[in-house]
């Protein structure tokens, strides 16, 4: 037997120590009782979305830093004039953020109905945004400004294109939510899941909106 004498009282459990991280997982979380209640399990969609957005943010950060470095690295920078249709696309995407927020809040009171309607409007506005972007690209092409024409145009097409690709992913998410919204739900687990999925898609969508504003400012205000 070990000869070591412990001067500390022995207990049955040794708390893991360190700061108590609040969360759904037992031991110290006052908000939730049982470990795997539907709310906390569905939380993974929200957490996952924030985590995923960190990586999207990093990619656009790297492209932004390339933009800034490139603009300073030589004297061939020719700033594009702002295609006016981009003001329309900005308005559309801002509007779509409002509508998706409406949808999200309506979900708290009813599981379908107004929720589905506001989702649908958001999809339309989002699609409208993409159409407006395509108009902008075609307008530039008609002026003879293409991807490799000059560094500013290269970044314009690249940044708006990358944004549009990600936004399209958001449109797919919205459509998926809208299609699923017609199912009637009674199980708490599935209701929690719908709320979490809607929250997650909303977070993504708002991020796409904020990203657009940022890119717009970067491309046309910071020269």
């Amino acid at each position: 037997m070990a000869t070591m004498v412990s001067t500390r009282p022995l207990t049955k459990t040794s708390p893991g120590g360190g700061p108590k991280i609040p969360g759904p997982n037992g031991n110290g979380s006052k908000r939730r009782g049982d470990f795997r209640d539907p709310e906390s399990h569905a939380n993974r969609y929200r957490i996952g979305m924030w985590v995923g957005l960190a990586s999207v943010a990093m990619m656009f950060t790297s492209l932004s830093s390339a933009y800034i470095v490139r603009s300073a690295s030589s004297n061939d920078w020719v700033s594009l004039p702002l295609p006016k249709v981009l003001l329309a696309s900005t308005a559309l995407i801002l509007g779509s953020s409002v509508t998706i927020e409406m949808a999200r809040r309506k979900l708290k009171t009813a599981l379908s109905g107004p929720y589905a309607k506001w989702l649908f409007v958001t999809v339309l506005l989002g699609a409208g945004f993409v159409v407006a972007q395509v108009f902008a690209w075609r307008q530039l092409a008609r002026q003879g400004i293409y991807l490799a024409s000059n560094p500013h145009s290269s970044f314009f097409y690249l940044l708006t294109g990358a944004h549009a690709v990600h936004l399209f992913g958001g449109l797919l998410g919205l459509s998926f939510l809208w299609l699923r919204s017609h199912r009637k739900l009674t199980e708490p687990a599935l209701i929690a899941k719908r709320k979490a999925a809607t929250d997650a898609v909303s977070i993504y969508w708002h991020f796409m909106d904020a990203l657009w504003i940022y890119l717009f400012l970067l491309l046309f205000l910071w020269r």
Partner: protein
Amino acid sequence: MSETHEGVHRHPAPTGFIRKYIFSIDHKVIGIQYIMLALAAVVVGMLMSLLMRLKLSWPDHKWAILAWLFPTGAPDGVMNPEFYLSLVTMHGTIMVFFVLTTAPQGGFGNYFLPIQIGAEDMAFPYLNMLSFWVTFVGFIAILLAIFVEGNHAIGEWFAALGPSFAGGSGTVGPIGGWTGYAPLSALGKIAGPGQGGGMNLWVISIAIFCVGSLLGALNFITTLLNMRTKGMTLMRMPLTCWAWFTTAVLALLSFPVLLGGGILLLLDRIAGTSFFIPGGLYVSGLLSGTNPNFPLHTGGSPILWQHLFWFFGHPEVYIAILPGMGATSHILATFARKPVFGYRAMVFAIFAIGLLGFFVWGHHMFISGMSPYSAIAFSVLTLSIGVPSAVKTFNWIGTLWGGRIRFTTAMLFAIGFVSLFVAGGITGLILGQSSLDLPMHDTYIVPAHFHLVMGVASIFGMFAATYFWFPKMFGRLMNEKIGRIHFWITFLGVYSIFVPMHVMGLQGMPRRYSQFTEYEFLQTLHPLVIFVSIAAIITIAVQFLFYFNVFWSMFKGEKAGDNPWEATTLEWNTATPPPHDNFAGVLPTVYHGPYEFAVPDAPRDYVMQTDVDVEVPSGNGHDGKH
């Protein structure tokens, strides 16, 4: 006995071969798939390094088999310089991405993270499956790069995708090193052989790999934050989980930067942009903008590529080593029969390494032409990142102190990890100083350093993990005798290969030279070159013993119980191999920290995390006060 409670979601176990073994959403199957991918990739990488050693040692020797396999790249059996350089490029790319960034994290992490935290699967099982198959497609793309450059017919056929896609230069892939510096990598075929379609595929493969890694990282982080079982607080997690978590955060934030840089490089190659290509270049007799093969470029910055690449590249090397560190801590404690020394310090050290890892990328670029002031900042930060690594080393030695060490093969490799990590890491003190980098940059002391840490210590971590967890994964033990032979020869072999490279570098042997015949100052190094090659041949050969052990033991190995090593963490509490939902529908509750070995007055010399009836000294046990 452990208290348990019901899990939330139950989906039935899959049936049918495809759903069980090919397109599976079970994290255990996906983990094994990643490991298999790495086992295949490492064979390709090792064979490439073998060819490199043959060329360096006997540059004019006519190898008959090469004349047969590679008539263009090795005419008459003598490898030409571009063939050699494509080996360098592909060896690095395949090893760093498809071995060191798959097996430790995607392989063992996928398999054991959910079990060690008491979850039934990852947070997003379908996403997990997607991340493996995306990575697999990336691997196919990089293999395709070999054929597009290596085979004339395929290279011609690929030109249909666009002029920059044409290959057929006879090399076994693109030429650029795994770092692919622009403008060499951006100019296309005019810059020489190996700059054609293979380079496009290299960029594409890496971009695909980025996506696969990001999806995986997302899953790891969400799972760890959301799905720990009751009682599993963050400070009760095994250090393997901390390592996988930090690695996932590093991957999440660094791979997107590589993806951005890769997109810019691809656009320079195929769309005529000038992100990395400056104006006024004169390449292979052509002036920029005067020939259809060389369109006009202006104003791009080659250094920009280096910044973007290394901003990813430095965290990447920590991605490669952190899981091995976690496994080593875990295995050292288990077989020393002692708690990890300084658990909290170890967690902080993992964080510090991860965090500082983002601020030191410029030490790859001291002489690149970037601002010398930033070089000073990067240099001092680089030296400080040695501190948490040293702390971890002290704690590993502290874990062994006072132990009752059992020398299983897993333990041998874990101890080997510590030895090799010290050997490799300590030369970081030299290379991290900007002044000393002036003579050392791009000499063999650099590959000596990074091979010891990445290519050896990291691999030892994986070997240790394999021997350790194999019984849990397959229900059988690996053969210990063969394992010991594998350990001894590999341990001696890797020291023999990489220590001489240090003095080679001091004398001035440059990197990425296909032969050393041109310079007088290198001639006295020849005996060392031969010695290293012979050691490499022996070490590579003995790895096939490991493969034999793995595959033979899967079917014929001695059967293992649930907890053959008398370990404490949750994976040893469940059946061997674990059922589809890991815990047969009843999730464990955790009462203790992960390394409660040698607890005084406990009935056995180990207390499992789920042992509800055993008493352990109070206070958090990690507080370092006893």
